[in-house]
């Protein structure tokens, strides 16, 4: 995908133009992007909130500041992590607009062009690949590491999440329109495929391990009744869920059947 908006040649500001402290402040405020998510403007309030300190510095005149804030109170919605790239990119644009080197409408075009693709990228990698993979893998670690599995979850997930979020912000700020090429180089979709396989394998392995563990608590033949029962329930549940049976119904039916067996046997 190629997006050409504005003047990329002049899109490499130095940190000094806004200052490292102010950039950090904007980044930290961007973590509140969804605080007032609403169906009409979606993340518009969060975006304006994140950008406000930078806009205040770039536009000392009241009129220009007002106009800048209002152009970021329009509809905005993307993935909350990949939004960091857009926030960084907006700062890049706003610096040029403040210096009179760019038309104010270009920053709106930049947002509109990127929020859809970055939402798809973020949803696909973070929500539908990284989160299930780390979640399933760490759930599989619970029998071994107990409560530490939760800590491992947080560390593994956030090493990737926070690194990429900060990196995206920096790339957006320093490269402006060039961030598309930078993001493309990381090839997140290919990594997502591998992560989804990890999630599936972890869940399958954990199901078998738990069946063996629960079975070990029962004496004699009941051990194998429980082990095979758990595996049969898991297989049937997969079959039903794959055929769009609501997962809550499958859960309740399985609990009822197993509960009846436990009460009677």
């Amino acid at each position: 995908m190629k997006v050409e908006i504005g003047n990329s040649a002049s899109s490499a500001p130095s940190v000094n133009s806004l200052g490292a402290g102010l950039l950090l402040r904007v980044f930290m405020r961007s973590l509140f992007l969804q605080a007032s998510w609403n169906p009409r403007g979606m993340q518009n309030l969060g975006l304006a909130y994140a950008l406000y300190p930078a806009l205040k510095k770039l536009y000392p005149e009241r009129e220009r500041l007002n106009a800048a804030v209002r152009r970021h109170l329009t509809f905005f919605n993307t993935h909350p992590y990949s939004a960091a790239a857009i926030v960084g990119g907006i700062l890049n644009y706003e610096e040029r607009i403040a210096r009179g080197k760019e038309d104010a409408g270009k920053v709106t075009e930049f947002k509109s062009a990127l929020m859809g693709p970055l939402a798809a990228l973020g949803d696909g990698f973070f929500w539908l690949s990284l989160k299930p993979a780390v979640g399933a893998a760490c759930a599989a670690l619970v029998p071994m590491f107990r409560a530490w599995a939760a800590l491992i979850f947080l560390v593994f997930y956030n090493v990737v999440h926070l690194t990429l979020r900060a990196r995206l912000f920096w790339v957006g700020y320093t490269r402006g329109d060039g961030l598309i090429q930078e993001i493309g180089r990381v090839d997140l979709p290919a990594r997502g495929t591998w992560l989804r396989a990890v999630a599936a394998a972890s869940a399958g392995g954990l199901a078998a391990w738990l069946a063996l563990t629960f079975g070990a608590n029962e004496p004699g033949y009941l051990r194998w009744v429980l082990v095979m029962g758990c595996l049969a329930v898991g297989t049937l549940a997969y079959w039903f869920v794959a055929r769009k049976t609501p997962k809550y119904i499958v859960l309740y039916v399985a609990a009822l059947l197993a509960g009846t067996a436990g009460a009677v046997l």
Partner: protein
Amino acid sequence: MDPWLEITLSGFLGGLLALERRAFLQAMFSRPLVAGTGMGLLLGDVSAGLAVGTVLELFHLGSANLGAALADNETLAAAGTTAAAAALGRGAGGSTAAIWSAAIIALVWLGPAGRMCERALERYSEHLAEKALLSAEEGDLTTAIHQNLWGMWPHFVVFGLFTAACAQAGYAVSHYWELLPFWAARGLAWAYPAMTSVAAAVAVRGSHSRRAAAYACAAAGAVMLIGAVRGLFQGHP
């Protein structure tokens, strides 16, 4: 710890987790495995937190808020169910698989209930957005910008109250838990592994992998093989 203090603390943590999930950071403190473990640690019953958290983590593994679509609120389900299970275990004299099952069966619906609450709270956020636009038009930028932060408190209060109510319910039920006949407690204990198996199957499906079933079967087969070999060496049938 005093039960009322525990109920208050569980509500406070439930509210914070709701904020982390929706409004701030999204660093997965609100995922069931982490939220359940955290709530279990807070209420002195890590086993309940891990047992509930693992099942609900798997059960909600593939769900996510995509675009404007809302998924079930797995955080409320995990925090509320763990709070109830821990309180029930405390009152009943110990954490058991029967208690975990009872809590999950009774409170797993908190997921969809939380989603409906979130949808209802969006109306308040919409009102804030309108106020922000109006303030910006009038030139009051500070008011306009700070509307963003006002969107957080309803989530904290509503989900905190839900979680505290679950802990309170756990304590209330614990007085009657010993009246449960043995066969019913055994039935509930057997329901827990069945629900774990269902949650794992839902997780395989929710992994979004194109060959999910193949990967899951291969991993399950490997684990069963290792278990069988271990059993053989240890002299189990």
